[in-house]
């Protein structure tokens, strides 16, 4: 059963189609990832789905409500973790939750009853009275996530939830998100951390230039687009080696600066050859989502 359905979404800014015909469906309880380089249209897509921006064309149904026409009713049952931190700096941790809960029409008593659970979830029970500027980046993100849960939403949108966090803080947030999916919440997240998408998402879509260019389960996407083994070769001689042996030993070769990426089904012959090349540094690893991403969206910078 779909909690979110969108078809043929188009949004133009000054004649440019920033979202150019996006269709997607997300099932209840799923963690759905929207991946793409900067400027791919991920954030605009989220804003369309939430009914904050009117599409130039296309249909959206969010939790059974047509969007944007009844977006406010849909948002009543949705939580949002925005990309940019917008907690209220004048308030304490607790007051942030209280004030935010009021926007959903909740009574103060109801919100106060929920606050201890939310603080425990965010690992902030000991910081209820703390003011926002005194929190670390990870604490702020966790509080923003707790704030998004104040209305007990069925569906949570997260726009690049771990950007700017250190590894400890990121892992802690991931644990929180897994707990939410295990409670049956639906998550829709945008990210450009492939590791994040691979770990958390049941299904994902890769966006580029306003379009969805690939969609599916992370493992299946990797299997579909990338050979099972990747050998990364570095060093001054890497380019020359690729010219001499690349076509012979790899199914596909990509060069990026002084690195060579060799994709293959069977690394045996390749690795035997590389053992005779002491000048080269070699990493042999399984294919991952980042390989899919780079194959589909290219290696050029997007800013």
């Amino acid at each position, binding site marked *: 059963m779909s909690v979110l359905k969108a078809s043929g979404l188009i949004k133009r*800014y000054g004649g440019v189609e920033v979202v150019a015909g996006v269709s997607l469906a997300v099932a209840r309880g799923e963690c759905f990832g929207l991946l793409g380089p900067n400027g791919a249209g991920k954030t605009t897509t989220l804003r369309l789905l*939430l009914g*904050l*921006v*009117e599409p130039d064309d296309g249909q959206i149904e969010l939790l059974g409500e047509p969007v944007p026409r009844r977006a*406010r*009713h849909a*948002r*009543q049952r*949705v939580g*949002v973790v*925005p990309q*940019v931190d*917008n*907690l*209220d*700096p*004048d*308030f304490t941790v607790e*007051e942030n939750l209280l*004030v*935010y809960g*009021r*926007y*959903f*029409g909740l009574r103060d008593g109801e919100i106060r009853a929920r606050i201890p659970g939310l603080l425990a979830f965010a690992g902030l029970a000991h910081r209820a009275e703390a003011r926002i500027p005194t929190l670390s980046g990870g604490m702020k993100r966790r509080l923003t996530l707790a704030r998004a849960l104040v*209305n007990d939403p069925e569906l949570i949108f997260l726009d690049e939830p771990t950007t700017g966090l250190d590894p400890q803080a990121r892992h802690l947030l991931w644990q929180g998100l897994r707990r939410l999916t295990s409670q049956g919440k639906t998550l829709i997240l945008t990210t450009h951390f492939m590791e994040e998408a691979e770990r958390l998402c049941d299904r994902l879509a890769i966006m580029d230039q306003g379009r969805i260019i690939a969609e599916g389960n992370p493992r299946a996407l990797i299997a579909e687009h990338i050979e099972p083994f990747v050998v990364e070769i570095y060093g001054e001689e890497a380019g020359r080696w690729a010219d001499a042996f690349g076509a012979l030993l790899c199914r596909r070769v990509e060069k990026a600066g002084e690195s060579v990426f060799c994709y293959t089904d069977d690394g045996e012959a390749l690795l035997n050859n590389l053992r005779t090349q002491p000048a080269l540094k070699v990493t042999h690893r399984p294919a991952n989502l980042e390989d899919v991403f780079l194959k589909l969206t290219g290696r050029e910078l997007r800013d």
Partner: protein
Amino acid sequence: MRYFTPPRPSLRFVPVWRRNFLVWRKLAIPSMLGNLADPMLYMLGLGFGLGALLPDVAGVPYLTFLAAGTVAYSTMNSATFETLYSGFSRMHVQKTWDAILNTPLTLDDVLLGEWVWAASKALLSGLAILAIIWVLDLEASFWLSLWIIPVVILTGLCFAGMGLVMNAVSPNYDFFLYYFTLVITPMVLLCGVFYPVSQLPAALQMVSRFLPLSHAIDLVRPLVLGRLPEDILLHVLVLIAYGSVGFWLGLGLTRRRLLR
């Protein structure tokens, strides 16, 4: 043009007002110093200091004359500062409005909350001056002076509505200086806060008639002096017009700024 469709108000604006009220309560002392004490000190300083050198103005001591103007002036200032600087912090710097828009509230609710909130703060500023008037017994009739309260509410809504337009088009805090230098300061000097408009050259008196502050003062001053204002309907309509057109335009411009 779709950004300028009529406002769709709802009671959802109340939590926005309450949010601002909670911040105000936490910062009440510095906020009151700026909003209340400053105009009060000017009024008392000029009223007593300058007033001692002056004959009666418009038939009353200068302090009384100035106090009536200060009610309107202080209300205007408070509404303007709130929608410009504080509103801009919430909209642009802290992204508070963005956070709210992810809830069931719409931008129309947010702007309505801000409008009513700024008018509430302005009411407090106007009431503070009115309280001084009562304490110093400057009013001719206490009962008539109570009518100043609705005038202050209307004046607050008028200037808060205008301020929302400036907020919507501002790229940064510095931009507001244009509004103060080109709109607010001339208005203070042309609308009869410090001296009767009749002292001005005819052309400037003409300009004054189109400015909302002079209509607010034309309502407040007679009420302090114990008379019913003349042309009440006209003054009220001008204040409503500036305020509601300001709110509509401010809302449209803010929709264009944030909902794209």
